[in-house]
């Protein structure tokens, strides 16, 4: 597995695989393949793919640790940038197809509807993450500060889920919302569990020498 992930073709393959949903949507848009309401289809599909990539990128670290394949870390940045790519498309679809690129109308619409506001906030919060994804930014910020900044992705995941939940709320149609919530919830719970476990370890460590003293008593 590590070997495959470290192969020099690995990144281009993943890069292209991540573009496939986009290519498929573009193909559908130009061949009348998106049903009776293509605008609605694109708006929903780009939102779905944003959530899916969010799940994928949040799964990288747990999978890397659990399967012992450190090479997975190579892909995390690219997958994270794909979350941003699809959320940009999602926002563009909203601004273009729903609002006719009318800037004034968009500015009025965003604060008016909580469901739009939450989605927009998630989009805005992802922007500094995408903007600091290159190596020089990590150096400039310092690894620790960079990591703290990039924990914003957890907030974004929560806001994204809330946006999706609200969108479906009017129709009590929560099946898919719960699936995404369960996946994201599990991925975040794993991190929390691990953080708590490592804190416990650091707390019990000073006690260890003391116990070693015991026999000499």
């Amino acid at each position: 597995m590590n070997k495959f992930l470290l192969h020099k073709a690995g990144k281009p393959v993943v890069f292209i695989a991540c573009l496939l949903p986009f290519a498929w949507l573009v193909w559908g848009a130009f061949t009348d393949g998106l049903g009776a309401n293509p605008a609605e289809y694109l708006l929903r599909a780009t939102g779905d793919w944003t959530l899916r990539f969010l799940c994928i990128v949040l799964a990288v670290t747990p999978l890397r640790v659990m399967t012992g394949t450190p090479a997975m870390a190579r892909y995390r940045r690219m997958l994270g940038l794909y979350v941003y790519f699809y959320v940009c498309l999602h926002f563009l679809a909203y601004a273009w197809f729903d609002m006719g690129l009318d800037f004034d109308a968009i500015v009025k619409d965003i604060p008016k509807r909580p469901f739009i506001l939450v989605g927009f906030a998630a989009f805005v919060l992802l922007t500094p993450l995408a903007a600091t994804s290159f190596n020089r930014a990590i150096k400039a910020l310092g690894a620790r500060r960079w990591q703290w900044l990039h924990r914003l992705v957890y907030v974004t995941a929560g806001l994204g889920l809330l946006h999706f939940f609200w969108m479906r709320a009017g129709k009590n149609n929560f099946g898919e919302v719960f699936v995404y919530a369960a996946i994201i919830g599990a991925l975040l719970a794993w991190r929390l569990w691990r953080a708590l476990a490592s804190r416990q370890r650091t707390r019990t460590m000073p006690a260890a020498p003391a116990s070693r003293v015991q026999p000499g008593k």
Partner: protein
Amino acid sequence: LASVPSKVAGAQTMEVVTDYKDAASYNNFYEFGTDKSDPARNAHTLKTRPWTVEVEGLVNKPGKFGIEDLLKLSAQEERIYRLRCVEGWSMVIPWIGYSLSELIKKVEPQGSAKYVEFLTLADPKTMPFVGSRVLDWPYAEGLRMDEAMHPLTLLSFGMYGEVLPNQNGAPVRLVVPWKYGFKSAKSIVKIRFVEKEPGTAWNKAAANEYGFYSNVNPEVDHPRWSQATERRIGEPGGLFAKRRKTLMFNGYEPQVGQLYAGMDLKKFY
């Protein structure tokens, strides 16, 4: 399904008719699934014969009407109506049917009948999503008596010259062109005349989003989106066609505006 062009005022819009393919494949009919492509895929299981519509409540002549009798109850007319969905899209559809008032007159409502309630089929054997918790089944809708008696309110049996496809509400449905589409109940099995405003399926599911009246109104937004504009399905230009401005009462204000004179439509949304 044979018909003659309707002479009812407002029943012949000159706008471009939506493609049959779109009108019969892009539907909200939750008994067959919540995705708009689900009904066309799943509704073949619906059995439309035999079919009876029970008329009951505050009327002098209640009874059960077989679908064959209903079809012959009055002359079938073709009416080309705009259809505006609460979700922000619209179509133009040539329906076939006759004014609901023809049936109402036959059953002689009593003076105390102020509202009409419509109940639709909820058969878990043929409707795979009855049992999902999305809505309270059976799907219920209602109109005020004067709305139900308005000549534009259509009891419909067909569209595009044919009998209704199952996914469009076969064998008999309502079409109320100045209200959002969900007010037009599909596959009706019971019509009840009552004194008090009946509960409706969407109002029970989300009262702050879907009111009893649900008249098309560009000035009263849905809590989650604007109702000022709409996307006309199949508009030339496709994806990049500009959205249209939504008209008050879906453009039927000259015909139905007086029904709501003096009412605060922000309150009675």
